[in-house]
């Protein structure tokens, strides 16, 4: 492996100092003179017709400056952000108010008169598919590869994957098992609630400060929904207090801009935690039936999977990636997947860390353990026998390039936490795998050489995971300078070159490639100018140690500093390195988790004793930051597996506080061991995406551990104390 000076080293995060001292600026920290406070009137029903909506008293309240309803919102913005004639989920916005204080704005909400006619609530995805289920949208026709259905239903999308002949495959199998698994809705749990501030200047140009993962993506969506050209919108991304897929800006953005336009003053909107729990775009609940067949020797012969993903009240046009990722770690000659996306009267779902994949892995990886048990085989050996390698095909027909799936399993096999025996009653060790392809997209970067030979990097990507630090490491490495000599700015949409959204575990891979190219571009220009200055051909010089020097004659050189100084004082002009990356190839990654739990058989309480996460990251540019991503994902997965839940009654959330929405605290978790595997991808430096894969196996790993500890198979999440107690009791009763 290449020896690097700054890559592969755990440089402290550049943004940490500001965050440690309270100086880092988040949206809610902004204060613009004359700023109004915007709040939302939310529906108390999950499904109801709006018979009458009268905002006149709210408008008349002193201090209220603007009130908007669906009538103010262009149809292009969709009805998910504001109900028109029907509310389709609990807390569906009905109106929004901007006033001089938050108190007045909230008082104004109380003055808005709404008459609702409650309608039957459809709250379960499987129920919603039935022909007699009440329809949410009279004009929703199932989209599928064969076209559009002819009658409306709650099924928004039907996707199928077929490979080989599943009937023949099951006929060859010695063991066949079929079971159904269910997962619940969960929230991203970011600590910073959704927030934005919008201002409209006298010429109508919108500036919006937002907590978003992608400034440019947000700008495009905002422009499309409000019918504004992108040149009329400037998005200024602030520090993001946690995103995990949930911060695309569109929850508040359009409402905030419309209020600011109507009021003619800046408007700030910051969600309360309760609003965030009720209104954000959580992970979809699923019901997944998995049937697997394998030979006596443990080779999978066929898989048949039916997946139902709840969309909430409005369906996104894209089928969930879980349709593909669940089975893709394994060689399967015969496959049939039927995937459904179904609308129900719940908040619209959204992207959450490896969207859709943990749910699918929960079903598939639990079933893999059931198969191993039925075959009398070690669960790791069973996975070894079926794991994909280079040249195999994923379910989406991607042919795997070099991947480290096998190497990850080998690392597990050797890991002390897998090898050492686990002693004690009601203790069990679980294993599960999970894969993620990683997103693709386009991004660009600009590298300016300052007059003194230092560097200024400009990117438009948002730093969620420490990418600023990564980019500085790349520039320092490529230009042979110290990280102190490189500054990095995350610009806004008016100043920075385009960057795709920081999601899909792509920023280091994709913007990293653009930064690398910008370095190469700047270096090439330095070489051109250095050669000219030395009076030789470009091929005769090289860039090294802050110099352009004659190959073989290092004493003949021109320094970076001199070239930099000359660039601003001669006709040659400033040196700007430009880099762009377009749709890098996916760099699939496998994570495998080993978890030890102890179960109190009388209360059902599950304690996580130890947790080990193994992952192929391609190349860890900053190992400490990689570990931090993995540990955070594991903790999120543990909450998903054990305690977090949306508890609805008639479609209304009953536990909308962080006291009753049980995100794990430090007291619920052990130290989280990580083991990094580095099988390089063909992305620059060999990197693979890091942030998402480590949540994928966690749900199944914990369920498998509970099974080993107690013999009960938990097929529904969350595995709360009461749920595990019920399962143990049911088992005892036989």
């Amino acid at each position, binding site marked *: 492996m290449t020896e690097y000076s700054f890559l592969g080293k755990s440089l402290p995060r550049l943004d940490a100092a500001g965050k*440690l001292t309270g100086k880092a600026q988040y949206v809610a920290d902004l204060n613009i003179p004359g700023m109004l406070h915007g709040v939302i009137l939310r529906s108390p029903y999950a499904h109801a017709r709006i018979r009458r909506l009268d905002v006149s008293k709210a408008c008349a309240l002193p201090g209220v400056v603007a009130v908007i309803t669906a009538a103010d919102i262009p149809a292009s913005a969709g009805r998910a952000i504001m109900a028109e004639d029907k509310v389709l989920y609990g807390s569906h916005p009905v109106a929004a108010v901007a006033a001089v204080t938050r108190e007045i704005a909230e008082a104004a909400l109380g003055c808005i008169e709404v008459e609702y006619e409650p309608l039957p609530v459809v709250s379960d995805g499987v129920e919603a598919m039935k022909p007699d289920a009440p329809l949410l949208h009279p004009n929703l026709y199932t989209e599928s590869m064969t076209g559009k259905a002819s009658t409306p239903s709650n099924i928004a999308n039907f996707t199928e994957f077929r490979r080989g002949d599943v009937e023949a495959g099951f006929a060859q199998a010695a063991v066949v098992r079929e079971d159904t698994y269910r997962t619940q809705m969960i929230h991203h749990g970011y*600590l910073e609630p959704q927030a934005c501030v919008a201002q409209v200047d006298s010429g109508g140009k919108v500036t919006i400060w937002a907590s978003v993962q992608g400034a440019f993506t947000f700008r495009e969506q905002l422009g499309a929904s409000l019918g504004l050209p992108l040149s009329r919108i400037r998005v200024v991304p602030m520090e993001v207090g946690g995103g995990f897929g949930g911060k695309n800006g569109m929850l508040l953005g359009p409402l905030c801009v419309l209020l600011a336009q109507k009021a003619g003053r800046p408007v700030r909107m910051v969600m309360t935690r309760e609003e965030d729990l009720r209104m954000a775009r959580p992970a979809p609940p699923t019901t997944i039936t998995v049937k697997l067949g394998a030979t006596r020797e443990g080779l999978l012969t066929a898989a048949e999977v039916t997946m139902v993903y709840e969309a909430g009240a409005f369906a996104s046009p894209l089928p969930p990636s879980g349709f593909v990722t669940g089975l893709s770690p394994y060689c399967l000659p015969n496959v049939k997947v039927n995937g459904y996306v179904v609308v129900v009267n719940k908040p619209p779902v959204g992207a959450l860390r490896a969207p859709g994949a943990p749910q699918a892995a929960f079903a598939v990886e639990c079933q893999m353990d059931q198969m191993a048990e039925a075959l009398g085989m070690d669960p790791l050996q069973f996975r070894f026998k079926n794991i994909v390698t280079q040249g195999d095909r994923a379910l989406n027909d991607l042919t795997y390039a070099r991947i480290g799936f096998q190497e990850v399993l080998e690392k597990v096999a050797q890991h002390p936490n897998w090898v050492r025996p686990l002693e004690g009653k009601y203790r069990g060790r679980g294993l599960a795998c999970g894969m993620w392809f990683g997103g693709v997209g386009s991004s660009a970067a600009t590298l300016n050489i300052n007059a003194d030979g230092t560097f200024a990097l400009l990117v438009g990507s948002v730093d969620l995971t420490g990418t600023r630090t990564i980019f500085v490491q790349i520039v320092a490495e490529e230009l042979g300078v110290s990280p102190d000599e490189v500054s990095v700015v995350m610009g806004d949409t008016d100043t920075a070159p385009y960057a795709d959204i920081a999601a899909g575990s792509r920023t280091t891979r994709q913007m990293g490639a653009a930064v690398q190219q910008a370095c190469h571009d700047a270096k090439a220009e330095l070489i051109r100018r250095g050669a000219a200055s030395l009076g030789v051909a470009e091929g005769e010089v090289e860039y090294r140690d802050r110099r352009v020097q004659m190959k073989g004659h290092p004493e003949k050189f021109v320094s970076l500093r001199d070239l930099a100084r000359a660039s601003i004082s001669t006709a040659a002009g400033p040196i700007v390195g430009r880099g762009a990356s377009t749709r890098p190839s996916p760099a699939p990654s496998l994570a495998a988790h080993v978890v030890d739990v102890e179960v109190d058989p009388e209360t059902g309480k599950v304690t996580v004793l130890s947790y080990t996460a193994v992952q192929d990251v391609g190349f860890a540019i900053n190992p400490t930051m990689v570990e931090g991503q993995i540990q955070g994902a594991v903790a999120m997965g543990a909450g998903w597996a054990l305690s977090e839940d949306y508890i609805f009654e008639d479609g209304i959330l009953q536990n909308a506080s*962080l006291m009753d929405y049980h995100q794990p605290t430090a007291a619920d978790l052990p*130290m989280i061991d990580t083991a990094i595997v580095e099988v390089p991808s063909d992305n620059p430096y060999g990197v693979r995406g890091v942030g998402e894969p480590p949540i994928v196996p966690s749900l199944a790993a914990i369920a498998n551990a509970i099974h080993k500890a107690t013999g009960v198979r938990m097929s529904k999440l969350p595995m709360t104390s009461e749920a595990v107690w019920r399962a143990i009791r049911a088992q005892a009763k036989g």
Partner: protein
Amino acid sequence: MKIPLHITVNGQPREILVEPTRTLLETIRVDLGLTGSKEGCGKGNCGACTVLLNGMAVNSCLVLAVEAEGQEVLTIEGLSQGNRLHPLQQAFLDQGAVQCGFCTPGVLLLAKSLLDTNPHPSEQEIRTAIAGNLCRCTGYDKIVRAIVAASKQKVAP
């Protein structure tokens, strides 16, 4: 009706007028412009607004500003001495315990109050003590390690 409030914030005596409904967090963030203290839930369930009130860690979202009359408040802005980071801040930096940063100020102040009373806490004591500070990014691993590291090298309070 606004009430005069006398508090010492980060060592500086302050006198301001506040409404009785104002929370200490609002006073710190809005009236005093010290936005390092964060609001994550407003109900005392997340710890992002933790400050030290007369040396004790409190959720400033659940304290009325007027209740703090005559008391001393330490916010994140007062933890470092000029440009010199507090040992806890340095340990968080070194151990990679900072990710999104939203929980960081609250966790740091809680950790300070912990080390002030228990200079060498065990891992379990740390985990129990910071249970009122939710973090979604780190899985707490590096936060716990950072507090342990700081407890080992802490010299001056």
